[in-house]
């Protein structure tokens, strides 16, 4: 046969730690984020937002604003030519508030002017008369029919029940708890920004936007602008992180409206403070859970009631709720369950997608429960989880059989095998102590604790949603060119896509075309789905091209195409001696194919929450080691050990980046991140008081990638973005409990929760 195979890793094919193609631009500062855009003649746009969480708008007077020199436009609800509202699931969110404002920060008007400072003056000159109303901020109260309904669609966004197996099953041991999850923010660094260019006729617009899903944005924007979709062209701007916060519309419609009104390019960007108001957050939730188990620790039944505070508008609350309740059992076998889940509208900020999407909340509850169960049964945290570990073929409490590879036991065992960190030395550097350079602790004040968290997470969209992805591959003169609308938000799809093409086609040079709406939808960069879906689309398009290439080569050289294969950068005859380089074979020809990758169909849930509503699942285990200054309640997360079910590692460097990054976000929710609300008012819309983990907060991460290829996945690889941030949170809290003996029923854990 052929000579010794070239090490695939030197070719940056699948499995190699290929480097980011946008890396040079990003490290030199030349990469264009959407906030870096600039155009001749451009004007700036800015938004007027409600200072009240709930109020009736009596009047809006824009006269003075329009008189300011340099102001080109002032728009309100009456200036929206098309649909007055938008939304991902239910179009219940106004482009501009007209009769009511329902959350602090809701947009009321926008202005366009020659300078951000002129914009600021114009906003200050708009006179809005509000009749301030009493906000409805408690979801339990909001749910009652006797409470004021703050929206025509009512306060109950969704209720779903799950009844599985025998609802009356019982067992010797019961443990229960009431768990609270605070409102986390995605806090991407790249602030919201966009540039809209109006077509000269005024019948169309091109929007350059940092977003997670170009086509979904386009549909909503076009409806509000009363323009056909093909006249609304979206181009992906450089995205500085997303984590779910860009799934909903923020400034898109506003920017386009101003562009069409003024006839000029409009740039809009949010400040950090505005960003806190300008995007959805993670749902705060209150979860009651009760586990019934045999005295050997085997789960017999789980009951739960979950209330998710969806804030003022629907966003993706219905889907977040379903994710939460369908993951009630965690990665464990459970034959019987009764769950009630509620997503509720309040005058709190709208909540929607954030990495983990409802499962973060459920996982904190179920993992806290598992530790209670362990204690009640006299088992260790590891053993209780091994006792109940889910396997392929087991059922969720929705009745769905988990067909995915489900190496839960292996995740736990391999995490457990990771060596513990060294104990904290008495002469350790103060920076290693909780409190760091604040010098609050001495060595003898510090107690170490260890805790566990294991989770299951669904991949892709659910409940019948066909979130397909599209890609086009063009091969010519030895160069492959890929086009897809997939949003690169930092996760590294732009690195992976060329790896796929190199593997399938035997080229080395791969060019990426612009991501825009000139090709079909790629679906959202969320739900840990792009490697599977857009990766599947790129893979499918490349395979089609390869097929045609083999036909071409076969015809030219009189070989049955079925005998041909790609080996490194050549096409060879597997049963002959023929060999030609791909470069030579594609000289002077162009082959182009577009492929849509669809995942299997899923179902709705019936009134008992039964149905095959998810596509696939991934699993992960986390073990946290923390040092706690018990008297002051300060925490240092020392080590996170993890084994994650990844299916197949397509790029080791990208993969570890996702795990470490997700762990940091889970750590944030565990000990420091929370949007603090007071009667509908956000108290901490700044990085001074919304605390993100710094380099000194980062734990040592020791990760094992468990590769059991997923047969359903086009590349054998599961999505890996969300699992890392899900069970790390309860693992950290469990570790703090171990160190302190405190019940700790809420996240984030605050110092006073530990020491008072």
């Amino acid at each position, binding site marked *: 046969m052929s000579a010794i195979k070239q090490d695939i890793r030197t070719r940056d094919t699948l499995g190699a730690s290929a480097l980011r193609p946008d890396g040079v631009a990003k490290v030199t500062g030349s990469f264009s984020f959407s906030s870096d855009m600039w155009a001749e003649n451009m004007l700036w746009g800015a938004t007027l937002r409600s200072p009240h969480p709930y109020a009736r708008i009596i009047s809006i007077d824009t006269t003075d604003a329009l008189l300011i020199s340099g102001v080109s436009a002032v728009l309100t609800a009456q200036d929206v030519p098309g649909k007055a509202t938008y939304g991902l699931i239910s179009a219940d969110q106004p482009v501009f508030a007209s009769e009511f404002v329902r959350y602090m920060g809701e947009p009321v008007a926008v202005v366009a002017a020659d300078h951000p400072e002129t914009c600021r003056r114009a906003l200050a000159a708009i006179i809005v008369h509000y009749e301030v109303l009493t906000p409805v901020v408690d979801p339990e109260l909001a749910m009652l029919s006797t409470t004021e309904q703050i929206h025509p669609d009512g306060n109950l966004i969704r209720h779903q029940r799950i009844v599985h197996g025998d609802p009356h099953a019982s067992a010797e041991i019961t443990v229960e708890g009431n768990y609270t999850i605070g409102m986390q923010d995605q806090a991407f660094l790249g602030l919201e920004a966009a540039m809209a260019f109006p077509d000269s006729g005024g019948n169309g617009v091109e929007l350059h936007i940092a977003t997670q899903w170009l086509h979904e944005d386009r549909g909503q924007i076009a409806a509000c602008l009363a323009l056909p979709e093909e006249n609304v062209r979206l181009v992906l701007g450089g995205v500085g992180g997303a984590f779910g916060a860009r799934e909903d519309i923020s400034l898109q419609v506003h920017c386009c409206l101003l562009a069409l009104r003024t006839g000029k390019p409009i740039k809009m960007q949010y400040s950090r403070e505005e960003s806190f108001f300008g995007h959805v957050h993670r749902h705060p939730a209150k979860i009651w859970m009760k586990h019934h188990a045999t005295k050997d620790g085997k789960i017999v039944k789980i009951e739960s009631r979950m209330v998710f505070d969806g804030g003022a508008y629907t966003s993706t609350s219905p889907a977040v709720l379903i994710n939460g309740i369908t993951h009630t059992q965690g990665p464990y076998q459970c034959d019987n369950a009764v769950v009630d889940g509620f997503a509720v509208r309040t005058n709190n900020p709208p909540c929607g997608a954030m990495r983990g999407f409802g499962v973060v909340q459920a996982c904190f509850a179920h993992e806290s429960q598992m530790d209670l169960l362990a204690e009640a049964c006299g088992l260790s945290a590891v053993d209780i989880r091994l006792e109940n570990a889910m396997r392929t073929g087991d059922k969720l409490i929705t009745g769905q059989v988990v067909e995915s590879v489900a190496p839960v036991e292996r995740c736990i065992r391999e995490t457990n095998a990771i060596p513990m960190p060294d104990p904290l030395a008495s002469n350790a550097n103060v920076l290693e102590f909780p*409190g760091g*350079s604040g*010098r*609050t602790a*001495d060595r003898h004040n510090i107690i170490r604790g260890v805790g566990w968290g294991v989770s299951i997470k669904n991949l892709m969209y659910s409940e019948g949603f066909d979130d397909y992805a599209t890609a086009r591959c063009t091969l010519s003169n030895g160069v492959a060119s890929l086009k897809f609308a997939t949003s690169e938000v930092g996760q590294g799809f732009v690195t992976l896509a060329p790896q796929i093409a190199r593997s399938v086609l035997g080229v080395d040079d791969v060019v990426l075309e612009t991501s825009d709406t000139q090709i079909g939808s790629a679906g959202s960069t969320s739900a840990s789905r792009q490697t599977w879906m857009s990766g599947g689309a790129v893979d499918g398009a490349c395979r089609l091209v390869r097929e045609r290439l083999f036909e071409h080569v076969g015809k030219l050289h009189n070989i049955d195409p079925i005998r041909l294969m790609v080996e490194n950068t050549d096409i060879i005859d597997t049963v002959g001696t023929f060999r030609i380089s791909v470069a030579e074979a594609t000289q002077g020809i162009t082959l182009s194919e577009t492929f849509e990758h669809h995942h299997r169909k899923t179902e709705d849930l019936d009134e008992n929450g039964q149905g095959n509503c998810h596509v696939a699942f991934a699993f992960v285990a986390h073990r946290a080691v923390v040092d706690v200054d018990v008297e002051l309640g300060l925490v240092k997360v020392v080590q996170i050990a993890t084994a994650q079910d990844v299916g197949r590692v397509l790029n080791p460097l990208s993969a570890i980046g996702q795990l470490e990054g997700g762990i940091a976000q889970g750590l944030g929710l565990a000990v420091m991140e929370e949007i603090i609300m007071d009667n509908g008012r956000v*108290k901490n819309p700044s990085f001074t*008081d919304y605390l993100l983990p*710094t380099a000194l*907060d980062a734990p040592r991460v020791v990760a094992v990638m468990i590769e059991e290829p997923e047969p359903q996945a086009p590349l054998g690889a599961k999505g890996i973005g969300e699992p890392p941030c899900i069970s790390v949170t309860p693992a950290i809290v469990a570790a703090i409990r171990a160190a302190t003996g405190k019940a700790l029923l809420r996240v984030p854990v605050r110092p*006073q929760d530990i020491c008072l």
Partner: protein
Amino acid sequence: MTVALPLTIREAVLALSNTPDARLIQGGTDMMVEINFNHLKPNNIIALRRIQELRTWQKNADGTVTIGAGVPYQEMESGELKQLVPALAEAARTVGSPQIRAAGTLGGNLGTCSPAGDGLPVLFALDAVVHLQSHEALRQISIHEFMLGVKRNARNANEIITAVTIPLLNGWQGYAKVGVRNAMVISVASACLAIDKSTNSVRIGLGAVGPTIIRCRDAESWLSQQFDFSSTTGIDGAVAKEFGRRVTLESKPIDDHRSTAEYRRHAVGVLAQRLITRAYPS
């Protein structure tokens, strides 16, 4: 709108006298936040960054050290200044981030006069003196008279804070600051404790638990009756704990979005106990 960039203190106070509404800016770490957020729109600025006199410090013959108001915190973290005023070095290290420490100054902390200002508990514990200069006069004022309330101080509008003089005490001193994460924290509660063996006294200044930095004079006085600060043996655990409790009583914390009064009160008690135990370990 003007920006003056004086090279000397003299030029600066003259500029201030000529444009009384001018805002003084040194490192900018407080003022620029106000400007960026549109809370402040200065008409005239006097930038102090070029004044070398403000960026120097010196050890004085009388057992004090005078630190120019423009010396950035990063310079206090190490070297001879750290040897001379170790509590200040410890406090300096907790200010913001390395980028903030390269720009932030004691003059700025004093000008802003927030009870959460990291350097201020040290100045209070050491009975620092603030130097002010106007076009007409030089004066010195005790830190205790300088800080009047939350973001209120005794600086006259025509004065520039030029320096702080800190007595060098004979004895242990240390600083501790409570924050939720391990870097870039606004103080939830902080404390500086200093021993002066020559007068057999202990001083403790608390930050972020009152409208001004609080010196816990009752607790200080009580402890000086319980314990000989020239002692070479450790302090009794019960005494240290009681000291902490008494410190707690003199704190005046509030509830806000960062923390609760209850936690802050508890925290300063713990800090006081730990600091005195560090000074006199068993």
